[in-house]
Protein backbone atom coordinates (compact mmCIF):
# COMPACT_ATOMS: atom_id res chain seq x y z
CA UNK A 1 0.00 0.00 0.00
CA UNK A 2 1.72 3.22 -1.19
CA UNK A 3 0.23 6.52 -0.01
CA UNK A 4 1.28 10.10 -0.70
CA UNK A 5 -0.35 13.04 1.10
CA UNK A 6 0.07 16.77 0.52
CA UNK A 7 3.24 16.38 -1.57
CA UNK A 8 4.84 19.63 -2.62
CA UNK A 9 7.98 20.02 -4.72
CA UNK A 10 9.90 23.24 -5.24
CA UNK A 11 12.76 23.25 -7.77
CA UNK A 12 14.86 26.39 -8.29
CA UNK A 13 12.25 28.42 -6.38
CA UNK A 14 9.48 27.23 -8.76
CA UNK A 15 6.59 25.20 -7.29
CA UNK A 16 6.24 22.15 -9.60
CA UNK A 17 3.23 20.73 -7.76
CA UNK A 18 1.59 21.12 -4.37
CA UNK A 19 -0.98 19.26 -2.26
CA UNK A 20 -0.56 16.13 -4.39
CA UNK A 21 -1.87 12.91 -2.89
CA UNK A 22 -2.90 9.42 -3.94
CA UNK A 23 -3.26 5.90 -2.56
CA UNK A 24 -2.18 2.81 -4.48
CA UNK A 25 -3.17 -0.70 -3.40
CA UNK A 26 -1.82 -4.10 -4.42
CA UNK A 27 -2.31 -4.98 -8.07
CA UNK A 28 -2.90 -1.36 -9.12
CA UNK A 29 -0.83 0.79 -11.47
CA UNK A 30 -0.46 4.57 -11.57
CA UNK A 31 0.48 6.48 -14.71
CA UNK A 32 2.01 9.91 -14.19
CA UNK A 33 1.30 11.98 -17.30
CA UNK A 34 2.24 15.50 -18.22
CA UNK A 35 4.43 17.54 -20.58
CA UNK A 36 8.19 17.72 -20.14
CA UNK A 37 9.28 19.73 -17.12
CA UNK A 38 5.97 19.27 -15.31
CA UNK A 39 7.72 17.45 -12.42
CA UNK A 40 7.16 13.81 -13.41
CA UNK A 41 10.76 12.87 -12.70
CA UNK A 42 10.78 14.84 -9.44
CA UNK A 43 7.62 13.07 -8.29
CA UNK A 44 9.10 9.64 -9.01
CA UNK A 45 12.33 10.59 -7.24
CA UNK A 46 10.27 11.69 -4.22
CA UNK A 47 8.35 8.42 -4.25
CA UNK A 48 11.53 6.34 -4.28
CA UNK A 49 13.14 8.46 -1.52
CA UNK A 50 15.96 10.06 -3.54
CA UNK A 51 14.40 13.52 -3.28
CA UNK A 52 12.97 15.10 -0.11
CA UNK A 53 9.62 16.85 -0.77
CA UNK A 54 9.46 20.42 0.55
CA UNK A 55 6.11 19.47 2.14
CA UNK A 56 3.95 16.38 2.57
CA UNK A 57 4.94 12.74 3.11
CA UNK A 58 5.15 9.39 1.34
CA UNK A 59 4.06 6.34 3.35
CA UNK A 60 4.70 2.68 2.54
CA UNK A 61 2.41 0.25 4.36
CA UNK A 62 1.58 3.08 6.78
CA UNK A 63 5.18 4.01 7.73
CA UNK A 64 6.90 7.14 6.34
CA UNK A 65 9.60 6.08 3.87
CA UNK A 66 12.05 8.63 5.34
CA UNK A 67 12.34 6.49 8.49
CA UNK A 68 12.26 3.15 6.63
CA UNK A 69 15.31 3.91 4.43
CA UNK A 70 16.82 0.51 3.41
CA UNK A 71 13.74 -1.50 4.41
CA UNK A 72 11.81 0.54 1.83
CA UNK A 73 14.50 0.67 -0.86
CA UNK A 74 14.90 -3.12 -0.58
CA UNK A 75 11.31 -3.55 -1.76
CA UNK A 76 11.37 -1.20 -4.74
CA UNK A 77 12.98 -1.06 -8.17
CA UNK A 78 13.59 2.43 -9.54
CA UNK A 79 14.64 2.95 -13.17
CA UNK A 80 15.49 6.55 -13.97
CA UNK A 81 16.34 8.26 -17.23
CA UNK A 82 19.97 7.10 -17.11
CA UNK A 83 20.33 3.42 -18.06
CA UNK A 84 22.40 2.73 -14.88
CA UNK A 85 24.91 0.42 -16.59
CA UNK A 86 28.70 0.69 -16.53
CA UNK A 87 30.37 0.97 -19.95
CA UNK A 88 33.44 -1.06 -19.03
CA UNK A 89 31.40 -4.03 -17.80
CA UNK A 90 29.49 -6.59 -19.87
CA UNK A 91 25.68 -6.69 -19.77
CA UNK A 92 25.81 -9.89 -17.70
CA UNK A 93 28.19 -8.42 -15.12
CA UNK A 94 26.09 -5.25 -14.85
CA UNK A 95 22.93 -7.24 -14.23
CA UNK A 96 24.56 -9.52 -11.67
CA UNK A 97 26.02 -6.60 -9.69
CA UNK A 98 22.73 -4.67 -9.85
CA UNK A 99 20.80 -7.66 -8.45
CA UNK A 100 23.39 -8.30 -5.77
CA UNK A 101 23.30 -4.64 -4.61
CA UNK A 102 19.51 -4.57 -4.65
CA UNK A 103 19.41 -7.82 -2.68
CA UNK A 104 17.39 -9.62 -5.37
CA UNK A 105 17.84 -13.42 -5.73
CA UNK A 106 19.33 -14.49 -9.07
CA UNK A 107 21.01 -17.46 -10.75
CA UNK A 108 23.40 -17.69 -13.71
CA UNK A 109 20.77 -18.81 -16.16
CA UNK A 110 18.05 -16.44 -14.89
CA UNK A 111 20.39 -13.60 -15.91
CA UNK A 112 21.06 -15.20 -19.30
CA UNK A 113 17.32 -15.73 -19.82
CA UNK A 114 16.47 -12.11 -18.85
CA UNK A 115 19.04 -10.71 -21.29
CA UNK A 116 17.87 -13.11 -24.02
CA UNK A 117 14.27 -11.89 -23.66
CA UNK A 118 15.47 -8.33 -24.24
CA UNK A 119 17.83 -9.47 -27.08
CA UNK A 120 20.91 -8.08 -25.35
CA UNK A 121 24.19 -10.00 -25.94
CA UNK A 122 25.29 -11.16 -22.49
CA UNK A 123 29.06 -11.05 -22.88
CA UNK A 124 29.67 -7.88 -24.91
CA UNK A 125 30.79 -4.64 -23.23
CA UNK A 126 28.05 -2.07 -22.77
CA UNK A 127 30.16 0.58 -24.50
CA UNK A 128 29.87 -1.46 -27.72
CA UNK A 129 26.03 -1.50 -27.61
CA UNK A 130 23.62 1.02 -29.17
CA UNK A 131 21.53 3.41 -27.09
CA UNK A 132 18.43 1.21 -27.58
CA UNK A 133 20.33 -1.90 -26.47
CA UNK A 134 21.65 -0.06 -23.41
CA UNK A 135 18.09 0.87 -22.47
CA UNK A 136 17.00 -2.76 -22.88
CA UNK A 137 19.99 -3.94 -20.81
CA UNK A 138 18.72 -1.69 -18.00
CA UNK A 139 15.12 -2.86 -18.41
CA UNK A 140 16.26 -6.50 -18.32
CA UNK A 141 16.53 -6.03 -14.58
CA UNK A 142 12.75 -6.06 -14.39
CA UNK A 143 12.68 -9.74 -15.35
CA UNK A 144 14.70 -10.49 -12.23
CA UNK A 145 12.82 -8.22 -9.83
CA UNK A 146 9.55 -10.11 -9.62
CA UNK A 147 9.97 -10.27 -5.82
CA UNK A 148 10.01 -6.43 -5.54
CA UNK A 149 6.43 -5.34 -4.62
CA UNK A 150 6.83 -1.81 -6.09
CA UNK A 151 8.25 -0.73 -9.45
CA UNK A 152 8.94 2.97 -10.11
CA UNK A 153 9.72 3.50 -13.81
CA UNK A 154 10.61 6.95 -15.18
CA UNK A 155 9.69 7.20 -18.90
CA UNK A 156 10.29 3.46 -19.47
CA UNK A 157 8.88 3.49 -23.00
CA UNK A 158 11.29 6.07 -24.44
CA UNK A 159 13.94 4.90 -27.00
CA UNK A 160 12.21 1.50 -27.32
CA UNK A 161 11.07 -0.08 -30.56
CA UNK A 162 7.60 -1.64 -30.98
CA UNK A 163 8.76 -5.10 -29.85
CA UNK A 164 10.39 -3.59 -26.77
CA UNK A 165 7.23 -1.68 -25.86
CA UNK A 166 5.10 -4.81 -26.16
CA UNK A 167 7.57 -6.79 -24.03
CA UNK A 168 7.58 -4.09 -21.35
CA UNK A 169 3.76 -3.90 -21.33
CA UNK A 170 3.64 -7.66 -20.85
CA UNK A 171 6.10 -7.47 -17.95
CA UNK A 172 4.13 -4.71 -16.23
CA UNK A 173 0.82 -6.55 -16.69
CA UNK A 174 2.42 -9.76 -15.38
CA UNK A 175 3.81 -7.98 -12.32
CA UNK A 176 0.42 -6.41 -11.56
CA UNK A 177 -1.09 -9.86 -11.90
CA UNK A 178 1.17 -11.01 -9.07
CA UNK A 179 -0.44 -8.35 -6.84
CA UNK A 180 2.46 -5.88 -7.00
CA UNK A 181 2.28 -2.12 -7.74
CA UNK A 182 3.78 -0.20 -10.67
CA UNK A 183 4.13 3.58 -11.00
CA UNK A 184 5.38 4.78 -14.38
CA UNK A 185 5.60 8.16 -16.09
CA UNK A 186 5.10 8.85 -19.80
CA UNK A 187 4.50 11.99 -21.83
CA UNK A 188 2.39 10.22 -24.47
CA UNK A 189 -0.16 7.45 -23.94
CA UNK A 190 1.54 4.04 -24.45
CA UNK A 191 -1.85 2.31 -24.84
CA UNK A 192 -1.67 0.56 -21.47
CA UNK A 193 -4.75 0.79 -19.21
CA UNK A 194 -3.68 2.17 -15.81
CA UNK A 195 -5.96 1.89 -12.79
CA UNK A 196 -5.10 5.49 -11.80
CA UNK A 197 -3.79 8.39 -13.87
CA UNK A 198 -2.15 11.46 -12.34
CA UNK A 199 -2.10 14.47 -14.65
CA UNK A 200 0.65 16.98 -13.82
CA UNK A 201 0.05 20.42 -15.31
Amino acid at each position, binding site marked *: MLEAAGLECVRQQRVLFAGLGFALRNGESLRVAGPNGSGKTSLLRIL*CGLLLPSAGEVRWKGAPIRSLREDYSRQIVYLGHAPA*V*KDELTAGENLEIACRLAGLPFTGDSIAEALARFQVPQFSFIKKLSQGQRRRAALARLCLSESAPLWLLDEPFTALDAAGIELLKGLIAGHLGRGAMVVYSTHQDPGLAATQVLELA
Partner: protein
Amino acid sequence: MLEAARCIVYRELLLALRRRSDVATALLFFVIVASLFPLGIGAEPNLLRSIAPGVIWVAALLSSMLSLGRLFAADHADGTLEQMLLGATPLGVVALAKTFAHWLVAGLPLVAIAPLIALQYDLPAALYGVLALSLALGTPVLSMIGAIGAALTLGLRGGGVLLALLVLPLYVPVLIVGAGAVEMAAAGLGAGAQLLLLGAALVLACAFAPWAIAAALRISME
Protein backbone atom coordinates in the same frame (compact mmCIF):
# COMPACT_ATOMS: atom_id res chain seq x y z
CA MET B 1 25.53 -6.30 4.58
CA LEU B 2 29.07 -7.61 4.20
CA GLU B 3 28.16 -9.41 0.99
CA ALA B 4 27.09 -6.15 -0.67
CA ALA B 5 30.29 -4.43 0.54
CA ARG B 6 32.36 -7.24 -0.96
CA CYS B 7 30.40 -6.90 -4.20
CA ILE B 8 31.13 -3.17 -4.38
CA VAL B 9 34.85 -3.65 -3.73
CA TYR B 10 34.92 -6.44 -6.37
CA ARG B 11 33.13 -4.14 -8.84
CA GLU B 12 35.50 -1.23 -8.20
CA LEU B 13 38.58 -3.42 -8.61
CA LEU B 14 37.12 -4.91 -11.78
CA LEU B 15 36.54 -1.42 -13.16
CA ALA B 16 40.02 -0.31 -12.08
CA LEU B 17 41.47 -3.37 -13.83
CA ARG B 18 39.66 -2.43 -17.02
CA ARG B 19 40.92 1.16 -16.79
CA ARG B 20 44.48 0.40 -15.73
CA SER B 21 45.71 3.77 -16.96
CA ASP B 22 43.83 5.63 -14.19
CA VAL B 23 45.62 3.62 -11.53
CA ALA B 24 48.97 4.38 -13.11
CA THR B 25 48.34 8.14 -13.34
CA ALA B 26 47.85 8.53 -9.58
CA LEU B 27 51.08 6.60 -8.97
CA LEU B 28 53.05 8.50 -11.62
CA PHE B 29 51.84 11.83 -10.21
CA PHE B 30 53.18 10.83 -6.81
CA VAL B 31 56.60 9.93 -8.22
CA ILE B 32 56.83 13.06 -10.38
CA VAL B 33 55.84 15.47 -7.60
CA ALA B 34 58.30 13.85 -5.21
CA SER B 35 61.08 14.13 -7.82
CA LEU B 36 60.41 17.82 -8.47
CA PHE B 37 61.57 18.99 -5.05
CA PRO B 38 65.25 18.04 -5.40
CA LEU B 39 65.23 19.83 -8.77
CA GLY B 40 63.89 22.91 -7.06
CA ILE B 41 65.81 22.78 -3.81
CA GLY B 42 69.08 21.17 -4.89
CA ALA B 43 70.49 17.69 -4.34
CA GLU B 44 72.50 18.30 -1.16
CA PRO B 45 71.98 14.99 0.74
CA ASN B 46 71.62 16.38 4.27
CA LEU B 47 69.00 18.86 3.13
CA LEU B 48 67.11 16.19 1.16
CA ARG B 49 67.21 13.82 4.09
CA SER B 50 65.64 16.43 6.39
CA ILE B 51 62.84 17.39 4.00
CA ALA B 52 62.14 13.81 2.84
CA PRO B 53 59.29 12.92 5.28
CA GLY B 54 57.41 16.16 4.64
CA VAL B 55 57.84 16.02 0.87
CA ILE B 56 56.81 12.37 0.56
CA TRP B 57 53.77 12.95 2.73
CA VAL B 58 52.67 16.08 0.85
CA ALA B 59 53.14 14.27 -2.47
CA ALA B 60 51.10 11.28 -1.22
CA LEU B 61 48.39 13.61 0.07
CA LEU B 62 48.13 15.49 -3.23
CA SER B 63 48.05 12.37 -5.41
CA SER B 64 45.39 10.64 -3.30
CA MET B 65 43.32 13.84 -3.43
CA LEU B 66 43.80 14.07 -7.20
CA SER B 67 42.15 10.70 -7.80
CA LEU B 68 39.19 11.51 -5.54
CA GLY B 69 37.39 13.29 -8.34
CA ARG B 70 36.75 9.95 -10.04
CA LEU B 71 35.39 8.31 -6.90
CA PHE B 72 31.72 9.17 -7.44
CA ALA B 73 31.74 11.21 -10.66
CA ALA B 74 31.72 8.27 -13.09
CA ASP B 75 28.92 6.46 -11.25
CA HIS B 76 26.99 9.73 -10.93
CA ALA B 77 27.17 10.30 -14.68
CA ASP B 78 25.85 6.90 -15.78
CA GLY B 79 23.17 6.60 -13.07
CA THR B 80 24.66 3.65 -11.18
CA LEU B 81 25.19 5.83 -8.09
CA GLU B 82 21.39 6.29 -7.83
CA GLN B 83 20.97 2.53 -7.77
CA MET B 84 23.55 2.29 -4.99
CA LEU B 85 21.61 4.85 -2.96
CA LEU B 86 18.53 2.65 -3.41
CA GLY B 87 20.36 -0.59 -2.67
CA ALA B 88 19.49 -3.07 0.05
CA THR B 89 22.42 -2.06 2.29
CA PRO B 90 22.71 1.12 4.39
CA LEU B 91 24.40 3.94 2.47
CA GLY B 92 27.14 4.24 5.10
CA VAL B 93 28.33 0.72 4.29
CA VAL B 94 28.23 1.45 0.56
CA ALA B 95 30.22 4.68 1.11
CA LEU B 96 32.83 2.89 3.24
CA ALA B 97 33.15 0.07 0.70
CA LYS B 98 33.62 2.50 -2.19
CA THR B 99 36.18 4.52 -0.20
CA PHE B 100 38.05 1.34 0.77
CA ALA B 101 38.14 0.29 -2.88
CA HIS B 102 39.42 3.77 -3.82
CA TRP B 103 42.11 3.44 -1.16
CA LEU B 104 43.16 0.04 -2.55
CA VAL B 105 43.60 1.60 -5.97
CA ALA B 106 44.97 5.07 -5.07
CA GLY B 107 46.34 4.80 -1.51
CA LEU B 108 47.98 1.40 -1.17
CA PRO B 109 50.24 1.75 -4.27
CA LEU B 110 51.64 4.92 -2.66
CA VAL B 111 52.56 2.98 0.45
CA ALA B 112 54.28 0.36 -1.68
CA ILE B 113 56.30 2.82 -3.73
CA ALA B 114 57.15 5.31 -0.92
CA PRO B 115 60.38 3.48 0.07
CA LEU B 116 61.54 3.87 -3.53
CA ILE B 117 61.09 7.64 -3.26
CA ALA B 118 62.80 7.55 0.14
CA LEU B 119 65.76 5.96 -1.65
CA GLN B 120 65.82 8.96 -3.97
CA TYR B 121 66.05 11.22 -0.91
CA ASP B 122 68.80 9.14 0.67
CA LEU B 123 66.58 8.43 3.67
CA PRO B 124 68.24 5.81 5.92
CA ALA B 125 66.84 2.32 5.26
CA ALA B 126 65.80 1.94 8.92
CA LEU B 127 63.09 4.57 8.33
CA TYR B 128 61.40 2.79 5.41
CA GLY B 129 59.30 0.76 7.85
CA VAL B 130 58.01 3.80 9.76
CA LEU B 131 57.41 5.70 6.51
CA ALA B 132 55.39 2.86 4.98
CA LEU B 133 53.49 2.25 8.24
CA SER B 134 52.62 5.93 8.72
CA LEU B 135 51.41 6.11 5.10
CA ALA B 136 49.49 2.85 5.48
CA LEU B 137 47.67 4.29 8.52
CA GLY B 138 47.32 7.81 7.10
CA THR B 139 46.21 7.31 3.48
CA PRO B 140 42.91 5.59 4.42
CA VAL B 141 42.05 8.60 6.60
CA LEU B 142 42.92 10.87 3.68
CA SER B 143 40.66 8.81 1.41
CA MET B 144 37.75 8.97 3.84
CA ILE B 145 37.99 12.72 4.46
CA GLY B 146 38.49 13.21 0.72
CA ALA B 147 35.41 11.09 -0.02
CA ILE B 148 33.32 13.51 2.04
CA GLY B 149 34.60 16.36 -0.12
CA ALA B 150 34.05 14.35 -3.32
CA ALA B 151 30.45 13.59 -2.31
CA LEU B 152 29.77 17.23 -1.43
CA THR B 153 31.15 18.59 -4.71
CA LEU B 154 29.43 15.94 -6.90
CA GLY B 155 28.45 17.38 -10.23
CA LEU B 156 29.56 20.94 -9.43
CA ARG B 157 31.44 23.08 -11.91
CA GLY B 158 35.05 23.68 -10.91
CA GLY B 159 34.82 20.52 -8.79
CA GLY B 160 38.55 19.73 -8.71
CA VAL B 161 39.76 23.02 -7.24
CA LEU B 162 36.74 23.30 -4.95
CA LEU B 163 37.40 19.77 -3.69
CA ALA B 164 40.99 20.73 -2.87
CA LEU B 165 39.87 23.88 -1.03
CA LEU B 166 37.38 21.88 1.06
CA VAL B 167 39.60 18.94 1.83
CA LEU B 168 43.17 20.24 2.26
CA PRO B 169 42.55 22.12 5.54
CA LEU B 170 41.07 18.90 6.95
CA TYR B 171 44.20 16.99 5.84
CA VAL B 172 46.50 19.16 8.00
CA PRO B 173 46.38 17.09 11.22
CA VAL B 174 47.06 13.83 9.33
CA LEU B 175 49.95 15.47 7.46
CA ILE B 176 51.50 16.88 10.65
CA VAL B 177 51.26 13.65 12.62
CA GLY B 178 52.25 11.47 9.65
CA ALA B 179 55.32 13.46 8.65
CA GLY B 180 56.09 13.96 12.34
CA ALA B 181 56.20 10.18 12.84
CA VAL B 182 59.01 9.78 10.33
CA GLU B 183 60.87 12.81 11.69
CA MET B 184 60.68 11.50 15.25
CA ALA B 185 61.97 8.13 14.07
CA ALA B 186 64.76 9.90 12.16
CA ALA B 187 65.69 11.76 15.33
CA GLY B 188 65.87 8.39 17.08
CA LEU B 189 63.05 9.27 19.49
CA GLY B 190 60.76 6.50 18.21
CA ALA B 191 57.51 7.21 16.37
CA GLY B 192 55.20 5.16 18.63
CA ALA B 193 53.07 8.08 19.78
CA GLN B 194 52.54 9.43 16.27
CA LEU B 195 51.60 6.02 14.84
CA LEU B 196 49.10 5.55 17.67
CA LEU B 197 47.63 8.96 16.91
CA LEU B 198 47.31 7.97 13.24
CA GLY B 199 45.59 4.77 14.34
CA ALA B 200 43.20 6.84 16.47
CA ALA B 201 42.52 9.12 13.49
CA LEU B 202 41.78 6.02 11.40
CA VAL B 203 39.28 4.73 13.98
CA LEU B 204 37.66 8.16 14.32
CA ALA B 205 37.39 8.45 10.53
CA CYS B 206 35.89 4.96 10.20
CA ALA B 207 33.26 5.85 12.80
CA PHE B 208 32.41 9.35 11.58
CA ALA B 209 33.15 9.52 7.85
CA PRO B 210 30.52 7.01 6.59
CA TRP B 211 27.72 9.09 8.12
CA ALA B 212 29.13 12.28 6.54
CA ILE B 213 29.69 10.65 3.12
CA ALA B 214 26.17 9.14 3.14
CA ALA B 215 24.58 12.46 4.14
CA ALA B 216 26.61 14.32 1.50
CA LEU B 217 25.65 11.78 -1.20
CA ARG B 218 21.94 12.04 -0.35
CA ILE B 219 22.17 15.82 -0.51
CA SER B 220 24.07 15.84 -3.80
CA MET B 221 21.81 13.30 -5.47
CA GLU B 222 18.64 15.28 -4.81
